């Protein structure tokens, strides 16, 4: 029994020690984001600032256009939710309808999962360029709007909905769109929750397409703005840390609220 208790204590020690190591960058970031500029050269470095200040956060909006970046990021987040809805719609058709070419279309979608991003990156840019969408919000959003993985997850989950339910609604004279919105969507709420959070995180963090497509600071997202800040104010660590914290803290909050759903979501998706 003593051995068992020793084992448990040892496991908890490892768990906490490992967790603290994982947290170092976050703690360092938060602490430093409240430091005044002159506190960065002190040896030994302080984890908690001696003279905490909000100046770095204020400077994000005064010296940089973080308000614009925030607005653009939120627009991308909103658009990505439209994409989520399109994924759900396609997943629904593949799960609950029979139509000619169904399997071929589905394999086509699955095949896109295997194509590495580096191969499509350059031609996608050329296509966007031909469509005249370089330096527009549409050009940033469209390439990643729908995704095979999302469609696949929706299809898997919606396959379990009994078809009788939809037949009954049809007999009652409900239109197909109404069935989707009022019958199907409420049933698949758990998948929507998981996919919604993952979509939010992905859109909030989106970096590469905005970087490639936006030539103009007007269209920069938070992460592109932050990389600009990293280059322009390379020695202003306080400003950099505040910018990083401004990006990371909302994600931490959202995730902490919904983490139970996300972790369960991986079990739903059958990734065992």
């Amino acid at each position, binding site marked *: 029994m003593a051995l068992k208790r020793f084992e448990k204590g040892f496991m908890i020690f490892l768990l906490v020690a490992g967790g603290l190591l994982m947290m170092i*960058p976050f703690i360092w970031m938060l602490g430093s984001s409240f430091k005044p500029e002159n506190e960065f050269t002190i040896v*030994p470095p302080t984890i908690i600032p001696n003279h905490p200040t909000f100046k770095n956060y204020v400077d994000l909006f005064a010296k940089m256009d973080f308000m614009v970046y925030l607005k653009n990021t939120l627009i991308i987040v909103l658009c990505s939710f439209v994409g989520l809805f399109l994924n759900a*719609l396609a997943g629904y058709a593949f799960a609950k309808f029979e139509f000619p070419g169904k399997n071929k279309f589905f394999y086509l979608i699955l095949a896109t999962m295997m194509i590495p991003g*580096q191969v499509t990156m350059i031609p996608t840019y050329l296509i966007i360029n031909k469509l005249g969408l370089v330096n527009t919000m549409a050009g940033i959003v469209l390439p990643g709007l729908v995704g095979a993985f999302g469609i696949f997850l929706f299809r898997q989950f919606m396959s379990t909905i009994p078809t009788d339910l939809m037949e009954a609604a049809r007999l009652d004279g409900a239109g197909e769109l109404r069935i989707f919105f009022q019958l199907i969507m409420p049933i698949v709420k758990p998948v929507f929750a998981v996919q919604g959070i993952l979509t939010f995180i992905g859109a909030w963090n989106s970096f590469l397409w905005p970087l490639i497509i936006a030539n103009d600071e007007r269209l920069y997202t938070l992460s592109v703005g932050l990389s600009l800040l*990293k280059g322009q104010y390379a020695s202003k660590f306080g400003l950099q840390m505040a910018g990083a914290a401004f990006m990371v803290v909302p994600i931490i909050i959202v995730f902490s609220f919904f983490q139970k759903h996300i972790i369960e979501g991986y079990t739903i998706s059958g990734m065992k």
Partner: protein
Amino acid sequence: MKQHANSWHKYKYPYLFIAPAILLLTVFSILPIIIALVISFTDMDLLGLADFSNINGAGFTNYLGLFKDPVFIKSIVNTGIYVIIGVPLVILFSMAAALLLNYGTSWLFNTFRVVYYLPSITNIVAVAVVWGYLYNSRYGLFNYILSWFGVPGQAWLQDPTLAKLSLIMMAVWKAIGLNMIIFLAALQGIPRSYYEAAEIDGATGWKKLRYITIPLLSFATFFVTITTLIGWIQFFEEPLVMTKGGPLNATMSMALFIYNNGFKLSDFGYAASGSFVLFIIIIIATIVQFLVKRKEVEY
């Protein structure tokens, strides 16, 4: 004609429902791969982008050129180093984290599950900004910690060898969370009765891990290995935001080489041929994984 109209009416809704997704995936995934293949055999650049008549066929010139390009060769070697060191570390640490988290069910374990997962949802630029400061050779935390042990400060991102390891360390930190969740889901699927039976037979903690847990995790391990391997062959964002491939291309990966040639040098044809070499390497690595897997015992 009438028959067509009928079948359209019958299947109108499913087709309408899949249309947006199919259209977008065709334009931004299927079409690009065809274009990539075509332009990889041409000399397409900015002139070609402005006017298609400026594009000339180049045969295999791009592909042959790649293997004479010292930067590309270096990027293949670097990518190999990233994969050989990074992939085993990710599997090891994420499995270890999952085992620790699966040990108990109290609030402590639930809290730390979030802690271990957080890096994987953190924005790569924010990660680069924070780690860049941690690695800073004058004011960074890592060199300060080294000074406790009397070790001189290191040029984490400036030394060609160390820079690769610094990027790997950061990427492993970021990759643990997601893979840990996959292991955790698999661990929770192992029936308790297996362990109880083993305990009756007198198996200790280590033996249970060695003879029950790890064999039963073989599918999850396979899944994590394949996805991690494919991910690390495409190692890209870390060198892009941390070092831009420097110093002297010491951290240049294949994916970054493709990006640089496409978007910095506007050498689209050359970059596309590089991307196909990368694609072929990924396919070969995946096939090898499946062949190795087939030789193993199924549980």
